[in-house]
């Protein structure tokens, strides 16, 4: 069996769905945060796949997508750094990382 673009897209779609479901259903902020990273990595995977299967006339893959992947990785790293710092600050103040306990603002 040869791997086609559809196989990659299927895995990437699964990753994205798992990530999104995790954000919606999980109650621990750290877990939610990991699920968010999963969503970004789903996009990375399909970007690389699209790039690999999008061969130009010169026989090279389209590198635009791979450049974008590097930017996504960098931005995700920055986001994690800031995000974890905020979560740590929250934990120090409240001794909890569960979303039910974060309710000082009225809905």
């Amino acid at each position: 069996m040869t791997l086609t673009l559809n196989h990659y897209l299927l895995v990437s779609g699964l990753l994205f769905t798992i990530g999104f479901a995790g954000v919606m259903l999980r109650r621990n902020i750290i877990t939610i945060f990991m699920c968010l990273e999963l969503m970004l990595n789903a996009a990375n995977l399909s970007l690389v796949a699209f790039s690999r299967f999008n061969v130009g006339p010169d026989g090279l893959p389209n590198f635009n997508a791979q450049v974008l992947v590097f930017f996504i990785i960098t931005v995700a790293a920055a986001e994690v750094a800031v995000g974890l710092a905020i979560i740590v600050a929250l934990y120090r103040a409240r001794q909890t990382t569960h979303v039910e306990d974060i309710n000082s603002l009225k809905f």
Partner: protein
Amino acid sequence: MQQILPAISLEVTVLILGVLMLFAEAFAKSADRSHMARYAIAVLAALIGFSFFTQSAPTELTGYWKFYSVDATALFFKRIALGTTIVVLVMALEYRHVLQKYIPGVEAGQGTGEFYSLPVFICAGLMFMASAVDFILIFVALELVTIGFYVLVAYMRRNMQSLEAGVKYLILGALSTGFLVYGITWIFGLTGETHLDAIKHALTTGFTAPSAIAEKGLGGLQGNEAALLFGIVLILIALGFKIAAAPFQLWVPDVYQGAPTPVTAFLSVGSKAAGFIVLVRVLDVFLAVPAVAGKVTALLAIMAAATLLYGNLTALTQDNLKRLFAYSSIAHAGYLLMAIVAMSVQPALAKEAVSFYLAGYLLMTLLSFLILIIVARHSRGDELHHFNGLAKRSPFLAFAMTIAIASLAGVPLTVGFIGKFLVFKAAIASGHWALICIAIVAVAAGFYYYIRVIAAMYWQQPNESAPIVIAPLSRLAILILGGAILFLGVYPKPILSQIKEPPQAPRQQ
């Protein structure tokens, strides 16, 4: 006009300024950091002046410059970003006494340096976004803005509300980033391009003649309308979070209430302007594809109607002024979306309405938040009753607030009225009558909750009689903003002439 500098020198200067401010925060000997903000205000004001001497015509785009294009509208939005940042820094100076209570273990004046330098970085992100014509630069600029906001919203580390707002903004902001990236991925997969003009080219040719991009080897994907719609909807969801459109607006009231007030003002102006700039750019591409244009417009119309109704009706019962402004900012996103809906039929009118509305919205929002900060500091709270009898304590502030509120409501002779007029004009010209009816109900509801604020200021007795002192810089900012609201409400030509697209403006591929 003489054009001596490339436009990117503006962004580079802003970035250098931000880095210098971080160094000053780390190494400056004196404890008081407030002079940093004053220097930054001076530099940013000078940059607004310089922006009139930079290149404003589109040039040949090659190499790195393919990401970046300059035209009159882009320069106009750069000036908006600079002006907003200046006012936010003025607010931050006014707010620093409150801020200090909630930062652990510092002496007076210390630890606030980042609070002045992060808005400068966000400003650079906004300015890049105004010129971004490639999804890569759009993404990076948008994230520069968003990540800066994560830090600013949660800046008061000893204040539970600020932290909580920070966490909520972080989770929902990151979620919208995920949607945006996945949407961009699918658009790339369909077209093989990240540059907006190239995407437009590929989509318009690819959907009329599928064989045109068949040689790219994407199998059954090209010309696939469902896949294209999937990508577009993901991007629209992501931008819906940024502009606070229903049904993605749930984070707004909490985050606006919890964040430090200058950050709330910056969020409601900067984040919204960023979202709408990108939305206009992106829709320009997608609406050119006849196969999906109708569906996208219908989707936007539903979003606009829901946003208008939700924002205006829930604002009716709010007693906290920051929360009231949060709902009002959702409502204004609805009016802006209404102009966006008209883009498929009347692109020129709609873009003019969006640009003008954003400019006016900026003036009145910044003015009302600036006054809110001053009053909240002296009344120790930002509930509606803290504004009781403001006319007796400070007629100047009460009058300025009346101007801002009247403009937010859309009373004639203010810039808010002209903005609403242009929005309705675009909507009528494109014939969205159901949406117009909903918007009229929304405007009427808007009048009610805005007038509650004015009534509290003029017809209630003050709770305390202490007079309110205004710093000279804040007084100057209030005078300029209030004057601009009235002046542009009577004579809007200075802005209209800047945002009018020149009739012959074919952008180079």
